[in-house]
């Protein structure tokens, strides 16, 4: 449902010249759970990327694949990463940072700079007074349905 709205929005903007190879059936999309537990989708070393996984990733990343090539690249990337399975890491702790043996530096809690709202607002395309302006979020299903229908026309 959400994915379809995004695509319609994009298509409207881009003149409908882009199309996804993997189309989602609107019926299916409506019934799809809001958070997909894609446990069955993750490739188990096969490098297969399914349509559901693609949608899931696109939603999480807010970046679209854009075509078959990108999907193929992801499959190659996964196959490449699968080589790690050959390493024996029993009893090895994960390493997050090379400076893990040190305490993170904390400076004293004094205000030393700031008060530069005007400067920061200058970089934004849309501001109103001291606010960054964003389009409405996803909390209004009826409004969304209305917009979807309008875009579909």
């Amino acid at each position, binding site marked *: 449902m959400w994915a379809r709205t995004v695509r319609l929005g994009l298509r409207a903007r881009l003149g409908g010249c882009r199309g996804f190879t993997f189309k989602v059936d609107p019926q299916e999309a409506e019934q799809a759970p809001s958070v997909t537990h894609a446990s069955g989708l993750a490739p188990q070393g096969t490098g297969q990327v399914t349509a559901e996984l693609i949608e899931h*990733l696109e939603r999480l990343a807010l970046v679209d694949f854009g075509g078959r090539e990108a999907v193929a690249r992801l499959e190659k990337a996964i196959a490449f*990463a699968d080589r*790690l399975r050959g390493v024996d*890491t029993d009893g*090895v702790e994960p390493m997050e940072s*090379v400076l893990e043996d040190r305490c993170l530096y904390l400076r004293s809690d004094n205000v030393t700079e700031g008060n530069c709202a005007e400067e920061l607002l*200058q970089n934004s*395309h849309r501001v109103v007074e001291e606010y*960054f302006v964003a389009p409405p979020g996803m909390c209004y299903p009826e409004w969304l349905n209305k917009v979807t229908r309008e875009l579909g026309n």
Partner: protein
Amino acid sequence: MPAVVVDLFSLLSPSPCGGRPNTKTMLGRTLREVSAGLKQGQITPTELCQKCLSMIKKTKFLNAYITVTEEEALKQAEESEKRYAKGQPLGDLDGIPVAIKDNFSTSAIETTCGSNMLKGYVPPYNATVVQKLFDQGALLMGKTNLDEFAMGSGSTDGVFGPVKNPWSYSKQYREKRKQKPHGENEDSDWLITGGSSGGSAAAVSAFTCFAALGSDTGGSTRNPAAQCGLVGVKPSYGLVSRHGLIPLVNSMDVPGILTRCVDDAAVVLGVLAGHDPKDSTTIQDPVKPFLLPSLTDVSKLCIGIPKEYLVPELSSEVQSLWTKAADLFESRGAKVIEVSLPHTSYSIVCYHVLCTSEVASNMARFDGLEYGHRCDIDVSTEAMYAATRREGFNDVVRGRILSGNFFLLKENYETYFIKAQKVRRLIANDFVNVFNSGVDVLLTPTTLSEAVPYLEFIKEDNRTRSAQDDIFTQAVNMAGPTGDSQIRSPNQSHRMPCSSSAFPASPSQQPPIRAPLKPSLFSHCKAFPLLCLLLSLCQMQVIAVDSLATANSINSLCFSSFG
């Protein structure tokens, strides 16, 4: 036109040992020599600045610069001149032209990261390393070209176009390719600079500045340094502040330094290193600038040659030069031994997973709301974000974000991300073990082969190329400091590995004949054609526990053929 660069390298030969440098050859001098010249009034900062600006114009076809900051540079030069007139220069960098990679924030100067996402973005502050350079009086020539968001190993994937390797226009290369030096040449077989700091490398290599900042996440400073015939230094993680460096991989990024000789790199590192309260990942230990001795005894050095770096894909030329470099050290009394870094073959895979995962997280900040590109869609926040990111990022960036998100999925987190973090520890331990066994420095190639033509490079995609080209360099980014990180006296305060690719690479397969390829590079070496010949064909990487040890080892290689 490319023809003008053909004469460049011979034009800028340094005057003979002991001779007075004149303004004509100033561009070919070392930083300290130019600084001395400025102090003595042999040249003024404005004249030097004008020379570099004129060189930038002549070499525009290289596409090394995204933004040339002519006005700012001349203003800075004027101020520098006032200081010299009073006899109060700020230091060795006062009045010295430098260039900065376009992923460092520069106040009031456009910073694009080579991407549509940040085209037109003007930061309101200077990155700490930029500020440090300015505080020392350096002149900013401009912001240099790069792969988009520093993702790539060729400097071919930025929105401002690819960067050309100045060596593509050297006499040797053109003769090798049997090209006509004048007339309509197709210019179709120009060489890449390597990446992602290719613009910085081309800028230094083409004598448009004396030093340039790059960034190094998986080799992005050392790779172009090797392919453009420069010294490239990746300081240890935590030694140099990342505040203001638009992040790629927070746990591996480091600002890098590109110069034409080792001493220059030491000068710049001395200025940049040190704790920054604005970057909590910088170490707090005191760092003092160091002076490289003019002659180093290598007989006490133990050089390690990691056997796993001898891969089938290594070109025979690089392999033979690796052997020659090792033999050179040995002939001067150093102990050269074979060592093992057993997890080397997994290192690039581990890097690939960790890099894409951190990238996925870091790129999330680009949503069009507070800065950067914003699309026209106003349907909903998510639609706006998605379209903005579609328009702002290229395929490479989007591909890495998607891969990263895949590895970070709940069901994949353990199998890929945590696994990669564990492998990272194994790789870091490999380095710890080697350095604890008495080895002072490791000597390895930087790249698999010399610089390749652009048309050949683009036959494979960015991910494949990065996996190939980063193979020798990324392990050090993951290992950072070795286990022995106790801080002793201030003199030994930086006991962490840093890696420098020290030696220039000649794109030509033919060994140059009488004159050294890069006469300006080894001003300490004066006239040693054989040594220069060897070094100018090498593209080696030296990894050490200690920044000073690295610099000393490389410097000593320059001297090891003194009779």
